[in-house]
Structure formats: C-alpha cells, structure tokens
C-alpha cells in the first residue's frame, strides 16, 4: 500500500526557498562585481602597497676637489637603521626592542617615528656602528620590519678648514621641502641636502639622482624577491679653485685669532683660499646634528656659523683710502703730486678730525699719504671730492653690493650717500660725514671679499672680477665671466699701486714684507668704539679695533690678491699684516719673518 502525503504546501514553500537562494547568491555576485571590477584598481594598489617596499639607494654626493685634484670633501660608507612602521604588527614592541638593541632612548626613537610619511622607511639611527649592525643581524627574525641600509655619508677630511666655503649638509627643513628647488627629487624629511657654502649653492649638481630597489616582502616583512631596481647616479665632482696647501697656510696663520681672510687670483677672481674663524667642524652635521649642539653653535657670541668673508661687514678704515685716492685722481680733484700739510689734525665744519700720528706727518704727496696712511691728506681729498663722487667710485669698485660669488647668503655692506641717508635715516647729509667716510669710518662698511676684490682690481689693471670657487663640474671647466674694466686710467692705478708698494716697503705695512717678492698692501683699522674711549679703557679685547690688510703680489704681474681681517686685533699693520705675510710667504714658497729697517726708512708709528 502506498500512502501519498499531501505535499502541496511543502512544494509551494520550497519555491520560496529556491528564490531566496538565488536572490542571496545574486546579492553576493553584485558585491563581488563591486569589489573585483568596479574597485579593482583601488584594491590592486593596496595589495601592491602590502607586498612591495621601496628601498632608496642614496646617490653619493659629488666630491669637492681642490684646484690640483686633492679631495676636500668626499663620502664614506655608513650604516643607517631603517624601519617601516606600517609593516610592524606591534609597533610598540618593535620600538622597545629596537631601542634596547641599539642602546638608544625610546623617546628619541618615537620622536623620529612621529615625523614620518606613510609607507616611507624611517631612519631610526644614522651612522650605526658595526656592533649595532651585528646586534640587529642577530635579531633579524624578531625584527623583520627593521633593516640596515648602507648609505654614503659626507665626510670632510679637512674638518674645520675652509668649512665656510665648502659648507655642510644637514636634514632638509620643512620650509625647504616647499621650495621649487627641492621639489620632485624624492626628498623627504630626514633627507640630507646642502645647508651652507658650496654644498648648498651647488646642491642640485652635487646630489646626483637617488636610485631605488622595489622589493617584494612577505607578511612577516622578509624580502622574497626584487621586482625593480634603478641604480643611483652619482653626483658629479666639483673642482674648486681652492689651493689646499695655501688654505692650510691660511688656517695656520689664523690659529688663535678670530677673523677672515680671502685670497683671489686677481686676473680671474678665482678664490685660492678662504677662511673665517672661529669655524666649526662640518662632520658634526652629516648625520643630523642634535638640538643642543646646534644651539651652542647658533648662539655662540663668536658666531662660528657665520662666514665672515661674505657675511661680516666691517668699517674698511684706512683701506678705504685706496678708493678715495682712485676717485680723487679720476675726478681730477688732485694730481699725484698734490701735497697737503698734516699738522696731526684738521679742524673743519666745527669739528677737529685727528690724524693717527699726533705730531702730524708734515707735507705729504699722495703716494706718501697712502704709505703712511695719513688721515689729514684724505680729509682734504674727501672735502674736495664730496660724497657724491666718492660714493660713485666706491660703488664702481664694488662696495655696497654683493660681489656675486657662488656662495649663498652673501651680504653687500654699505656705501652711504645723501640719498641713502635721506631714505633710511630721514636726515640730511652733513659735509663732516664725508670727511669720516673718506678714511673708511662712519657708515661705510664692507666684507673682506669686497676688499680683496678692490686689491685685485688695482692689481689687474682696473677690472672688477666676480669672485668664484668652482672651476669645473665633472671635469668640464665652468666658464667664468670675463672681468669688465670699470674705466680707471692706467696712470691712476699705477700711482695707487705705487703707494701700496711703499706701504710695505717703507710704510705702515712693513710687517708684510717678503725678502724676494715685492708686496703691495694697505693697512686699515675698523674702529669698534671711539678712539677716546679706547684710550680711557685700554686692554679690553672686545674694544680693540679690527685690523685690515689688503695686499697683492708681486708688484709687477700680480698673482695673488688678498684681504685679511683680524677681529679686535688692533691696528692693521700690527695685527693683519703679519698674517698676510705668512700667507704670501707660503704662496711664494718663502719663509723667515721680516725685520724692520731692512729697506731704508721705516715708519713704525701707530696707523689706522
């Protein structure tokens, strides 16, 4: 017997279940369509981010070489410990373990991690020691998100020598990251770029182009394979005009002194040596200087970070008389044989202007006035020239404007004029001021580089050079611009140069005299306080004037032009001339200090 049950309700409801099944599967298909077709690209990117890591292969910066090819700045291999925080499953644990392994503070480490960009490796320790690397290697499996990269590190074998010219590298600043100059170069916070000197000015050339490796890693962060690689392009080396041996002599001559010196090739404007003291060791910046060391450098009253050669502005003092003499001859105010009587002072415009020699120099012509640095002679010159013509020639000779040297942050000094005074100080020009300006005091100020350029100008027949440091990029010469004549008559230059010869031969600059090479020079003192005050409080170093010495040599066919400034050294003849002599002696391969009286009349009186 067969009993058939009534299954009609069952069958009707089964249709509902079948419909439900189809509907649910259709819903799933729609979701997969959404994920796999509509949003596929998005998820493909996420998968790519998951599995691939970009390892930057830092391009070594180009080396800096001296004019003979000697290495001034180079790179050495160093180890960086890097971490990709996104790949850490438990970042806290990694940080704790890493800090313990590297023996560094957890706080420092966290601070570095806080400044990161997504998916960019964070450098947690630069220039790690071999011991660090070994310790990390031993924990490779525990810390797969940590890796060690070999990166070239900037190295300055000369340490603080020429530090201001060569410059330094440092971590790129937030502000720099915004600048067009640094954009699109794959730079990120923590990247090292040139921050001063040649390193900064030629940063773009020196950087080269970083390469990269794109590696595939598994979920534990271990590298599985390399997907892509682009080799780094080394930055080209730069050949500088610096002569390492002369630079060393300059550094030696400045030992224990604060100040600046710059030596130029008077024909081309090439910088042969440049120093600014006190200096700093750029090696301390290569791995990112810590805040306290930075603060102590930046806040040091001796301003070791400042390049005095191009950023220090000083009253040129009597060195300015070269400008006044040139202007006076060119304007026909005097002739070389014009004489003035020096009684030791000049009373004019209701003021008594004093000469350095209390008893007076007596009757002086131009050459002797330069040689003895007679103030009264140049007071007279200034009165006859008037400020307009004096300022015109000073500006033609490069004062009051930057020289255009290939270094960053050069300042222009100041050459005052009635227009300037009205614009800035809102007061009219007093004729008495011209008298002060004529001997390089008052508002006039100049950098050592500007003064060296004036020495070069007199040496090379009246052409204004543009000082520069780079001779060649990657071996290819960099064409310097041809110096332009500023239209000084040769006779004028001959007289001024002869006056400068006499400065060394028989005048205030005798301490710069060399046995077999005729040196032309000019002393100067930049007063820090009024002379009367200095006389009341002798022996306070900070109140002593800055001593100047400008020079070129040999007198015929000059090969070197020089400006030396010794801060608070006293008079130029006493403080700066011996330094200049040391530099010149090395340049010409001579030695033995000069002695007074070797060549006739010598005036050892105080000069300014």
């Amino acid at each position, binding site marked *: 017997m*067969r009993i*058939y*049950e009534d*299954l009609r*309700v*069952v*069958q009707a*409801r*089964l249709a*509902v*279940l*079948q419909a439900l*099944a*189809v509907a*649910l*599967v259709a819903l*799933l*298909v729609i*979701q*997969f*369509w959404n*994920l*796999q*077709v509509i*949003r*596929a690209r*998005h*998820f*493909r990117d*996420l*998968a*790519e981010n*998951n*599995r691939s890591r970009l390892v930057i292969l830092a391009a070594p910066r180009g080396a800096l070489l001296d004019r003979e090819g000697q290495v001034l700045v180079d790179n050495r291999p160093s180890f960086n410990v890097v971490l990709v925080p996104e790949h850490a*499953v*438990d970042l806290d644990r990694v940080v704790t373990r890493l800090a313990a392994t590297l023996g560094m503070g957890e706080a420092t480490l966290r601070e570095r991690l806080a400044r990161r960009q997504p998916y960019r490796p964070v450098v947690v320790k630069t220039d790690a020691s071999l011991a660090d690397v070994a310790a990390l290697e031993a924990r490779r499996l525990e810390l797969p998100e940590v890796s060690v990269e070999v990166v070239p590190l900037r190295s300055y074998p000369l340490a603080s020598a020429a530090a201001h010219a060569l410059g330094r590298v440092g971590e790129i600043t937030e502000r720099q990251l915004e600048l067009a100059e640094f954009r699109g170069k794959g730079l990120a916070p923590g990247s090292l770029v040139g921050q001063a000197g040649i390193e900064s000015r030629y940063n773009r050339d020196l950087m080269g182009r970083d390469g990269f490796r794109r590696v*595939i*890693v*598994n*979920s*534990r962060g271990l590298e*599985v394979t390399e997907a892509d690689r682009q080799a780094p392009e080394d930055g080209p080396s730069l050949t500088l005009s610096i002569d390492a041996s002369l630079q060393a002599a300059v550094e030696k001559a400045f030992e224990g002194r604060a100040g600046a010196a710059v030596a130029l090739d008077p024909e081309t404007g090439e910088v042969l040596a440049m120093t600014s003291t006190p200096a700093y060791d750029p090696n301390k910046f290569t791995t990112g200087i810590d805040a306290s060391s930075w603060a102590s450098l930046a806040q040091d009253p001796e301003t070791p970070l400042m390049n005095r050669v191009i950023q220090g502005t000083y009253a040129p003092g009597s060195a300015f008389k070269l400008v006044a003499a040139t202007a006076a001859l060119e304007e026909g105010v005097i002739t070389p044989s014009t004489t003035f009587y020096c009684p030791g002072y000049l009373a004019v415009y209701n003021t008594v202007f004093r000469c350095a020699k209390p008893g007076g120099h007596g009757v002086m012509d131009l050459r002797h006035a330069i040689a003895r640095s007679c103030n009264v002679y140049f007071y007279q010159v200034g009165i006859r020239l008037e400020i307009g013509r004096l300022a015109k020639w000073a500006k033609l000779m490069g004062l009051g404007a930057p020289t255009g040297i290939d270094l960053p942050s050069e300042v222009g000094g100041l050459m005052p004029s009635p227009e300037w005074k009205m614009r800035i100080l809102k007061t009219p020009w007093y004729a008495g001021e011209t008298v002060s300006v004529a001997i390089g005091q008052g508002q006039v100020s100049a950098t050592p580089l500007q003064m060296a350029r004036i020495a070069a100008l007199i040496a090379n027949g009246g052409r204004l050079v543009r000082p520069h440091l780079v001779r060649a990029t990657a071996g290819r010469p960099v064409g310097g611009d041809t110096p332009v004549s500023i239209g000084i008559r040769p006779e004028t230059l001959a007289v001024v140069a002869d006056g400068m010869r006499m400065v060394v031969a028989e005048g205030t600059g005798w301490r710069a005299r060399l046995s077999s090479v005729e040196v032309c020079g000019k002393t100067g003192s930049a007063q820090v306080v009024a002379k009367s005050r200095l006389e009341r409080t002798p022996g306070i170093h900070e109140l002593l004037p800055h001593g100047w010495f400008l020079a070129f040599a040999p007198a015929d066919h000059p090969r070197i032009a020089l400006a030396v400034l010794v801060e608070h050294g006293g008079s130029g003849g006493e403080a700066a001339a011996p330094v200049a002599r040391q530099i010149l002696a090395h340049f010409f391969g001579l030695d033995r200090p000069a002695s007074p009286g070797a060549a006739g009349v010598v005036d050892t009186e105080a000069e300014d």
Partner: protein
Amino acid sequence: MAGGIDRRFVYNVDWVLLGTALALALVGVAMVYSATHSGRSPDLYLKQLALVGVGTLGLVAAATVDYRRLADRAVLLYALSVVALLYVLRFAPVIAGTRRWVVIGGFQLQPSELVKLAAAIFVAKVFAEFRQETLGLRDVFVPGAAVALLALLIAREPDLGTAACLVPLFLSVAFLAGLRMRAVLGLAAVMLLLAALTWPFLKDYQKTRIYTFLDPSLDPRGAGYQKIQSQIAVGSGGLVGRGFLEGSQAQLGYLPARHTDFVFSVLAEEAGFVGVVVVLGLYLLVLWRMLETARLARDRLGAFLVAGLAGSFGFQVVYNVAMVAGLVPVKGLPLPLMSYGGSSVLSSLIGVGLVLSVRGRRFAN
C-alpha cells in the same frame, strides 16, 4: 530489505548534484594547495584530498542507508549528540582558546559538524510527525527548544558559527512544515531579540569583531586585519584573477586563515570575478538540486531532511562568502566542501549523501 540497494535507486542518483559537490571539493583541494604549498605544511592539500576520498565513502554510505531507518533512531541520535557535545565541553583539549575538537585515533574530529547532521534528521523526524496543515508558535516550541539546547552547547565551546547554522536548519524545516508566516516573522524577531540579549555575554574578542566589522580602520592590525586583507585579496583579483599561485595576498601570507575560513578569498584573488561567478554558480546548483530533491521527495520526512540540510548548507555558503567579501562580521565558519578541515568536508559530503538517499528513494515504498 532495509539496507539493500534498490535497482531504481541507481537510476535515481542525482549525478548532477554528486558531480557538482565533488567538483567543488576538488576546487577546494586546489585552493588549499595554493594557500599552503609554500608554507610550513605544503602537504595539506594531500590530506584534504584524502579527506575528500573518505568523505566520498561517507557520502556513498549515507546515500545507501534508507533515511527513514535513520529517522527511526532520531531521538537516539539527538541524545548521542548531547552526550558528545557535553563530552567536548568537559574533556576536549583547549585549542586556540576553544574546545571544539576531540582526538580519535590520531584524527581531530569536530563533533559539532556531525551534530548538524543529527539535528537535521531529528528536526525532520519531529516535523514529519505533525499532521496539521499549518503550525503555530506553540507547535514548534518543543523541537525549537531541543535544537536551541544543541546550539547552546555548541556556542559554549565557543563556536558561534556552527551554532548559528542550526537556526536556518530549523527555520527552513519549520517553514516547509507549514509554520504560519506570522510565526516565521515572529520567530525571526525573537531570534534577533535573543541575539541582542546575548551581547553582554559575548566575549571581548567577539565584540571587537563586531565593532571592527563596522569600522575596520579602528584596528587595522588586529581584528579589522582579516576583513581588510580579505577585501584586498578579493578586489585585487579583478575580473580574471592574478592566476593560480600568483595571488600576492595569498602567496605572501597577508591573507589570514587562507586555507580554512578564507579559502574563498584565495579563489577570488587568483581566479577573479569569473572564477567567483563559476564557483558561486556551482554552489547555487548544489542548493537548487537539493531543494529540487526536497520537492520530489516521496514523503514529508525526506523533504524536511533535505530542507534542513540545504538550509544549513546554504547559510554556511552565503555567510562565509559574504564574510570574505566584507559584508558580514568575521566568524569562524568554514566554507562547506572547499575549506580545509576533515570534519567539515566529511559532514558536507555525508549531508550530500543523505540528500541522494532521499532522492534515490522517491519511488521506493
């Protein structure tokens, strides 16, 4: 003869259902291979293959047994289930924080998977006894409580996923048995209410899973990780997939539980949308043939048995795939037939065997 093979039985074997189920199991083996070949146990796919073999034997055995004879022992099966689950709770070793497995002769067995089958037989038997056209809530209270006891015991392991499977199992049978629509909706409401009431009793990790489901970025390295990585795997598969053994999410180990609960992610990544549609099509075919079998069954008992099995099977497939696609919170629920795991494969294939048993006897007396 009770255990004999009717000649008509062979005629009535649903070769489509059998073939589709075995095809899915083999796709599963391939995906298990892809997910594990480069890992620490590269031979898991062989084990899975062996389990499919054993499962197929189980399938044949289940198909051969007359489901009516099984139903006669429904109460016994239910009692055995309760005892087994109590045993698991009391004596099973703690593995990954849960007591789900017992070790028998070197094999790990998950009794809850087999309890699903027993529950299907039990529920079918109870509802087949009803003689009225429509059922009210009062009628389903006793079987409902019986199933709820099983679900509770499984949930205590804890294994919410498997416990949840009993709900659609029960509901689909009750629905077919003529439960009034009002009662169906009421029951669903009660379920939801119960789910809400269980919230304070959920373990922290379970709560976290639900929170991070709502917003995976809350914890991209923790509980949200699975959902995010699974979606990345699925999405990056694109239209045609990355190719077999070429999915970076699966091959480099970003995808969690990739040979078990997330095996479908591996498929989606490596075979793409096309592969997903094909495999979902196969699952739909299995479901369709099951429900068709229920329609053709000679008696209510057979129809209910198949409906219960289909309900739990369909729920598992839909929930697991929805989880892989990031539509529902992550729960430890394997994908029937494809996920690695002996008990799951065995239970799924025996379930298919029971369906075949019903279909084969549609003309038997």
